[in-house]
């Protein structure tokens, strides 16, 4: 079912029409071996408009990955709710949601091509349809020349790109990305960001991107959610006001510096807190 079946074009986005709606979301990990329970996240609220590019920044350990897991339906919330396209998310990953994890999750026994084709093959997509889609995804992440290589022959950053291709090839309507460019160098990171923006424009997908890079957040996003130290909550949500048709050349825009400065002002205090709290 397409997005447009539910969200009439031209209508302003309300809480009902939000692509993703999060209310009072909290995650408490039960303490193992006599340790006290740990509140990792929330309570927090969040609405993502259809086709929005939303980034999350926050100090290490504040619960960003935990948030992504719950949004994806991969782990349960302790309290609160998540809805995706009007349906509650729980237990299973809904159709139309794609996830790229922070950790390398490429399948070592499959070639780059077969990794990227994995999801489509499970759906029994005919090989004639599958091939162009996989090739397109590999071109997008710049690994066309490595289609027959195995993950063990690639660098960490290349493997992460394989995982991105494996997710994008499914054409998800909501893409959850956890630090996907973490292992890339600055230049590749910028170019991959441009590719992601292009794909985002072409597919109309909603994107939630978790990143440690303030520049990346400032360049790519419509809105940026700044999280507090654990338990993570949004302490600021910054609207960038960028045009939909944008790319990394924005880095020269005077507005760009103002946004990163604002994120850093919010984040500095929280990062210090998180560092002091770290064992």
């Amino acid at each position, binding site marked *: 079912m397409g997005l447009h079946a539910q969200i009439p074009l031209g209508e302003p986005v309300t809480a009902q029409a939000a692509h993703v709606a999060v209310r009072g979301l909290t995650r408490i990990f039960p303490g193992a071996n006599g340790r006290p329970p740990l509140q990792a996240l929330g309570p927090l609220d969040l609405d993502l408009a259809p086709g929005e590019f939303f980034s999350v920044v926050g100090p290490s350990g504040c619960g960003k990955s935990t948030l992504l897991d719950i949004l994806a339906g*991969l782990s349960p919330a302790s309290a609160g709710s998540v809805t995706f396209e009007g349906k509650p998310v729980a237990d299973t990953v809904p159709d139309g949601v794609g996830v790229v994890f922070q950790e390398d999750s490429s399948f070592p026994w499959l070639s780059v091509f077969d990794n990227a084709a994995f999801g489509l093959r499970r759906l029994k997509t005919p090989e004639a349809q599958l091939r162009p889609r996989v090739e397109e995804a590999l071109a997008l992440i710049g690994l066309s020349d490595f289609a027959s290589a195995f993950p063990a022959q690639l660098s960490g950053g290349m493997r992460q790109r394989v995982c991105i291709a494996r997710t994008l090839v499914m054409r998800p309507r909501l893409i959850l990305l956890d630090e996907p460019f973490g292992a890339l160098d600055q230049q590749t990171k910028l170019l991959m960001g441009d590719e992601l923006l292009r794909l985002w424009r072409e597919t109309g997908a909603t994107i939630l991107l978790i990143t440690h890079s303030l520049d990346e957040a400032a360049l790519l996003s419509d809105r940026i959610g700044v999280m507090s130290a654990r338990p993570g909550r949004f302490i600021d949500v910054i609207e960038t006001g960028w045009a939909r048709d944008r790319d990394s050349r924005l880095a020269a825009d005077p507005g760009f510096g103002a946004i990163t400065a604002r994120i850093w002002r919010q984040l500095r205090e929280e990062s210090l807190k998180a560092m002091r709290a770290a064992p």
Partner: protein
Amino acid sequence: MTRAGLLRTGIIAAALGALEAACRLGAIDRFSLSPPSEMATSALRILTSGEYTRDILVTFATVAGAALLSVVAGFALGVLLYRLPRLKRAADPFLASYYAVPSFIFYPLFIVLFGLNRWPLVAVAFVFAFVAMAIASVDGFLSVRPILLRTAASLRLTRMETLRHVILPAAAPYLFTGVKLTIVYAFIGVVAGEFILSGSGLGYRIAFAYQSFETATMYGLMLILICAVVTVNMLLWSHEKRLHARLTR
């Protein structure tokens, strides 16, 4: 040939040469040990005469049957233990001490149960082998990185698809080792059983030759057995090495 391969061939050739010389020069009594060249001619004679062909085939068929049963049952038990962690925790002490019990003590029992035919041999080999496969399987399944299971869930795979397309290939190196061990154990089980009590098979023929002082025949048969087992293992080993090379840097 690689350096290691050359060295290996050299060592084997030197050992055989030394043994040959020792036998020929009378340092080793002819009746206890034939020179390797005589073992080889005897093996060749055994193979060409056809006199032992039936026994050789019967032993291999029994080993193949027992190994197949062990792989299937061991794998199934592995899946069960993986799916039921509580059962696995209960079974862990038994699995850990399983090979402390010499399973050949059950051979007479199997003869009573099945009669004096090939089935007690299959049974004793099975009992000896299938647990190795079960342990290798469950260890393999548990070694799968959790992130790969999360990936499977994020791609909306069913339980069966996850097992078939993620857990099995991720655990493949372990499963392969399990199969290799199972075949070796099945060989040991069958041949040892034939040695103890049987009316046919390679093990029986070796024991028979020994008892009737047919030293040349005995060594010829032993050589055939050793060559067969080593060949099977080398094939599996080289396959395993190739598999490993692809998965790691």
